[in-house]
């Protein structure tokens, strides 16, 4: 009977507790992280006789927390993935609109800028049209600057969010540590109650932590969990927490304990919004900024380079159009020493943009080897591909060139193991500025004026190809020094002459003679930049024999040139590395034409020969016989004057065919063989008949008649001028023709011309400075042409297309992020559902439980009532 009462009381107690737990479940139906609980009841067995009734009611064994640890972990993992892609996609949405959208696009600003140049080309002298170019350029600059500013704001915004995320991670870590502490101090046999709530809290803290970063837990015993984040970084070990901080340059620092020395762990942070934002900041945002900077830099330099080649409205060379992207502050800013470098004093890195068309938009790292002194490599930052490597040669400064860039290392010491981040284009969109202020300074005209002489017969036409070097001494303010004249000596050869005095153009020293023009070819018509000229100039060149020998016929003893050899050495024009050498030789008395032919067979060598001989005096007294002068076998009887002799020589068909030209001004007759064959002069007549001959060494020799003995003669050799390509050096044998280490005279005029059409012999073109050319738009046409010209990258694309590619990339990344976000969200929802299906509270279920436990409670009460009745009955019986 007492048993029955006890059993009834136990039932009351149990059901009371069950109702309380149900109430707790109902109350926490919407509490995040709450796991529903259940009262575990076990039947009680009395210690009585085994054969008799042994029930002793029941007792609450434990209050169980219904949770599936696997599902909880799954939620955590899916949460971390979702937060990652969600943070990334949300950030992306902020920049997507910057590149594509109404009125925001840089593409339109680029188009309008070039458009304004086209308009200015239609009216090159119009200041309002020029002003519009400047205005459009200004707004283009502003577009680049403001998009860059927005990108920087984004970076700043991300850094702020990172900071607050880290703060929250630290709070969560502290919370987890304190739960560890409490769980650790708790008797493990206690089941349910406080522990249940702590475990729920812990799971919820871990879930929230997973929103920020990937979480791993390891059971540390005593109910405690050690928490690791990212790629295995310890956050909570027992009751000790690490601290995360954002450094000044926005890297993430982990201190194992408060006040301990920290370490940079940015690359180890994965998952969660921290992982997503870092991914956004350090790759996507950076790449977009770099790509934009690449366009800005290439545009600015391409326009600047061409603009500098033109003339402005006042006739001065174009100044900077956009601000110089290789200004000192900018070149220094492109290289950053990485943490841990041992910087030597006075060492500095400058990064110059050399070839805008080759820019890639990559970031690089310059690494000095730990082992080999001075050995360096340049690696692409993402992927680590080595783009250049070498060893410092001790020069100061020295340059490293790759992918359109040149790194200048100043200060000899770069310590082993030093690393530098090279970010060539990162800030270029922001650094873009407009340098030109005065619309009259817009350089639309070309610097060169080319005029065909009015009496030209042929249809040849000259045009300016490019200005390679406007600092060439040839270009002086307002003039060319000297102005040039191109004179066609045949339809396919021409001389370039100094036209300082238009009434008598002069040859250069050494001369630029008989350059070849191949109709239809676009070969530059002036010696190329970097070419050098070497002239044959030993003592015996063009020399006359001292005493003319007497011959009975028109024999000749040759030009008496010695046999010779010439060695030509080659160096790679870019690297300067020596290449193999070649040499040629010739026998004695070889004509200049033959020598030129041998030399011309060498690669990188053009050789031209010409023979000249001056006659300065003529005495014909007709004492006995009239004088006969024989030029290369052609006789001229009784020449009365140098002028008449010249006219006769020019009228001679045979000599004309040989390329012999005579020019006389009354006191001097110059015979020229344009092919460089020897010129042989025979004189017959009285000893008092004579000509005075001047050789090319400036020595004169009187050749007089030998009477009936025959002829006296002189035979004169020509001069060879070699034109050497860049990197080619010529060395003679010093045997009278080519000196050892002869002077190499630089040539080229800093600009290139091209010839088209069919010029005729005698046609002339003058090349002068393009003064007062207010209507000239040739340079403007080149500038405006960049709107469609494919100039950037490989394969090359235009500026506009390069920009469209950025839009496409950004759009692709965004749409991929959207897809990933959606997928991650579905996975998260599923895993939350899976967890909730076990741990979540179902109110209908709890309502049913309420009814169930209430009924059981009532029944237990009835048991007590029955016990009481039994007891009363018993008492009544006794009474």
């Amino acid at each position, binding site marked *: 009977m007492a048993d029955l009462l006890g059993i009834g009381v136990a039932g009351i107690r149990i059901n009371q507790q069950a109702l309380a737990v149900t109430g707790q479940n109902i109350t926490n139906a919407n509490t995040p992280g709450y796991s529903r609980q259940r009262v575990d009841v076990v039947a009680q067995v009395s210690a009585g006789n085994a054969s008799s009734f042994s029930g002793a009611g029941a007792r609450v064994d434990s209050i169980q927390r219904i949770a599936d640890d696997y599902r909880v972990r799954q939620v955590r993992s899916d949460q971390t993935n979702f937060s990652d892609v969600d943070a990334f996609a949300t950030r992306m949405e902020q920049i*997507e609109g910057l590149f594509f*959208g109404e009125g925001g696009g840089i593409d*339109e600003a680029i188009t309008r800028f070039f458009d304004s140049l086209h308009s200015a080309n239609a009216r090159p*002298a119009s200041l309002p049209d020029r002003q519009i170019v400047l205005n459009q350029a200004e707004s283009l600059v502003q577009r680049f600057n403001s998009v860059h500013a927005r990108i920087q704001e984004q970076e700043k915004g991300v850094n702020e969010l990172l900071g607050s995320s880290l703060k929250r991670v630290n709070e969560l870590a502290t919370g987890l540590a304190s739960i560890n502490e409490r769980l650790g101090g708790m008797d493990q046999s206690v089941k349910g109650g406080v522990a249940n709530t702590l475990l729920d809290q812990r799971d919820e803290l871990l879930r929230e932590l997973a929103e920020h970063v990937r979480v791993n837990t390891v059971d540390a015993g005593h109910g405690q969990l050690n928490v690791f984040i990212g790629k295995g970084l310890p956050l909570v070990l027992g009751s000790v927490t690490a601290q995360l901080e954002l450094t000044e340059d926005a890297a993430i620092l982990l201190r194992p304990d408060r006040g301990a020395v920290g370490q940079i762990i940015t690359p180890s942070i994965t998952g969660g919004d921290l992982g997503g934002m870092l991914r956004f900041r350090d790759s996507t945002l950076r790449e977009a900024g770099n790509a934009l900077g690449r366009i800005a830099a290439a545009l600015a330099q391409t326009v600047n380079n061409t603009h500098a080649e033109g003339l402005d409205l006042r006739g001065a060379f174009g100044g900077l159009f956009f601000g110089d992207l290789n200004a000192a502050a900018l070149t220094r800013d492109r290289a950053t020493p990485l943490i841990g470098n041992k910087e030597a004093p006075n060492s500095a890195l400058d990064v110059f943009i050399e070839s805008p068309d080759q820019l890639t938009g990559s970031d690089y790292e310059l690494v000095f080897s730990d082992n080999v002194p001075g050995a360096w490599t340049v690696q692409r930052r993402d992927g680590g591909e080595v783009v250049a490597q070498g060893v410092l040669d001790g020069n100061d400064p020295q340059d490293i060139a790759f992918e359109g860039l040149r790194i200048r290392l100043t200060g000899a010491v770069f310590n082993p193991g030093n690393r530098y981040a090279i970010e060539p284009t990162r800030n270029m969109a922001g650094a873009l500025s407009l340098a030109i202020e005065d619309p009259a300074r817009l350089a639309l005209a070309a610097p060169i004026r080319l005029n065909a002489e009015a009496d030209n017969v042929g249809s040849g036409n000259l045009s300016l190809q490019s200005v390679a070097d406007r600092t060439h001494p040839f270009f002086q303010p307002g003039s060319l020094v000297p102005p040039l004249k191109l004179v066609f000596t045949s339809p396919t050869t021409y001389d370039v002459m100094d036209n300082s005095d238009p009434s008598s153009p002069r040859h250069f020293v050494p001369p630029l003679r008989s350059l070849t023009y191949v109709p239809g070819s676009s070969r530059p018509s002036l010696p190329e930049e970097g070419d050098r000229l070497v002239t044959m100039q030993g003592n015996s060149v063009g020399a006359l024999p001292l005493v003319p020998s007497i011959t009975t016929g028109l024999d000749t003893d040759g030009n008496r040139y010695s046999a010779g050899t010439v060695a030509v050495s080659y160096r790679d024009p870019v690297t300067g590395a020596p290449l193999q050498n070649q040499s040629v030789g010739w026998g004695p008395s070889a004509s200049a034409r033959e020598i030129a032919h041998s030399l011309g067979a060498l690669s990188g060598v053009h050789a031209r020969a010409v023979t000249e001989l001056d006659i300065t005096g003529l005495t014909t007294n007709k004492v006995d016989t009239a004088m006969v002068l024989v030029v290369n076998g052609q006789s001229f009887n009784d020449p009365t004057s140098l002028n008449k002799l010249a006219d006769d020589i020019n009228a001679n068909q045979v000599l004309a065919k040989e390329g012999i030209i005579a020019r006389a001004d009354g006191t001097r007759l110059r015979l020229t063989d344009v092919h460089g064959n020897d010129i042989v002069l025979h004189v017959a007549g009285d000893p008092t008949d004579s000509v005075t001959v001047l050789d090319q060494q400036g020595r004169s020799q009187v050749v007089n008649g030998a009477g009936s003995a025959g002829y006296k003669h002189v035979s004169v050799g020509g001069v060879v001028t070699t034109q050497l390509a860049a990197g080619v050096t010529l060395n003679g044998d010093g045997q009278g023709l080519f000196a050892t280490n002869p002077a190499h005279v630089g040539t080229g005029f800093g600009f290139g011309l091209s010839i088209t059409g069919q010029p005729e012999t005698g046609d002339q073109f003058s090349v002068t400075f393009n003064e007062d050319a207010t*209507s*000239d738009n040739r340079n403007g046409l080149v500038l405006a042409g960049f709107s469609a010209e494919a100039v950037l990258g490989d394969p090359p694309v235009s500026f506009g297309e390069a920009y*469209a590619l950025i839009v496409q990339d*950004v759009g692709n990344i965004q749409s991929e992020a959207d897809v990933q976000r959606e997928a991650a969200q579905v996975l998260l929802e599923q895993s939350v*559902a899976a967890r909730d299906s076990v741990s979540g509270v179902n109110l209908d279920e709890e*309502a049913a439980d309420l009814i169930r436990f209430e009924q059981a409670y009532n029944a237990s009460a009835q048991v007590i009532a029955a016990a009481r009745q039994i007891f009363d009955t018993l008492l009544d019986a006794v009474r």
Partner: protein
Amino acid sequence: MRISTAQIQQSGITDMQRLNRELATTQEQIASGRRIVRASDDPVGAAKIISLKRDIEQRETFIRNASAAETALSLEESALTRVTDIVQRVQELALQSGGGGLTSQDRQFIAAEIDERLLELKELMNGRGPDGQFLFAGNKGATSPFEVDGTTIRYRGDEGQRQLQIDRALYLQIGDPGSQVFMDIPSVSPSFQVDRHQGNRGDADIIPVAVTDSEALGKFLPENIVLDFRPTSEAGGLTNFTVRRASDGRVIEGLENIAYQPGSPIEVAGMQFKLDGHPAEGDRFTVTTTQDQSLLQTVANLAEGLKQIDVDKQPDEFRKLIEESLGNLKHATDNVLQVQSEVGARLNTVSSVQSFHADQNLATQALLSEVQDVDYAEAVSRLSFQSFVLEAAQQAFIRVSRISLFNVL
């Protein structure tokens, strides 16, 4: 599977959020008229939009350039038309003066009218475009190209031919330098022109007088003449000069170290000219012979001849003057007409290129609209379907969340 109450609520809310988002996208497309609102909606399409827009913009630039070219060319054409009109009038006057029954007084009147026409021609040739630049000065647009000083005609422009880009690879010439239109005109007989050297310090000038022997001059061609004042190497006073051939510096016979007399005529190779003013040491002049004669020169010579030549005393010279003038005027007309026809051809190019660009742009616009614009019929029906689904989801949510066992407790 067991389902928690929170789960029922959450899944309903999630679904409605998704539907709301889709609805908002559709609504944005309809409101903006754009299929691609963000680049991520269709990254390739977005890049294509930029390319197509650039293509259209560029063609519009070309169209604008073409109309600028049209303006310039029309201006040139009308100037040339007026020039030919005037030349025609001068031809009539030349014929008229050559006819019989005219007194010398009449010829003076004709000469006076020709002078007027000369001025008019000069004004036309020195005409300016709307930007104030001289039309026929080549690239030297701020320099008045034609200078008439008595019978000396000088061209101050250059040979620049301005171009405009009117298609990707098509640069159209939008002007002709005056040298080509009015100077380089083949002449019936050779002529010459004189130039002071740039470095001259004195104010002396050479004044061409006449071609006295065109046969001799024809033989002398294409040789030119250089006249030097007292070269430092030679003795003689300040006023001595020497005449040489330009090509080889040969002294012209009889013209070495000649004493300078202001205004006295010099004859070389059939050319007659005279020197005037004060020469300085080392001054130099060039006399260029040519088979060409400028239009202004022809007209000026005619007027000058009519004034100077006495028909009765010099009938041959007069006849030659009229004949040569008529011949040269015809050459000038031919030359101007040829330039005019070139201008006309360029104008044709302009209009065909313009309509080509316009056609292309229509096609490109259609393509752009296909990529960029929303299909309204499709979008609107999508909108109504999406809003229908959303409403259904909302109602389902309300209904499901209303059901609870507690309601019947």
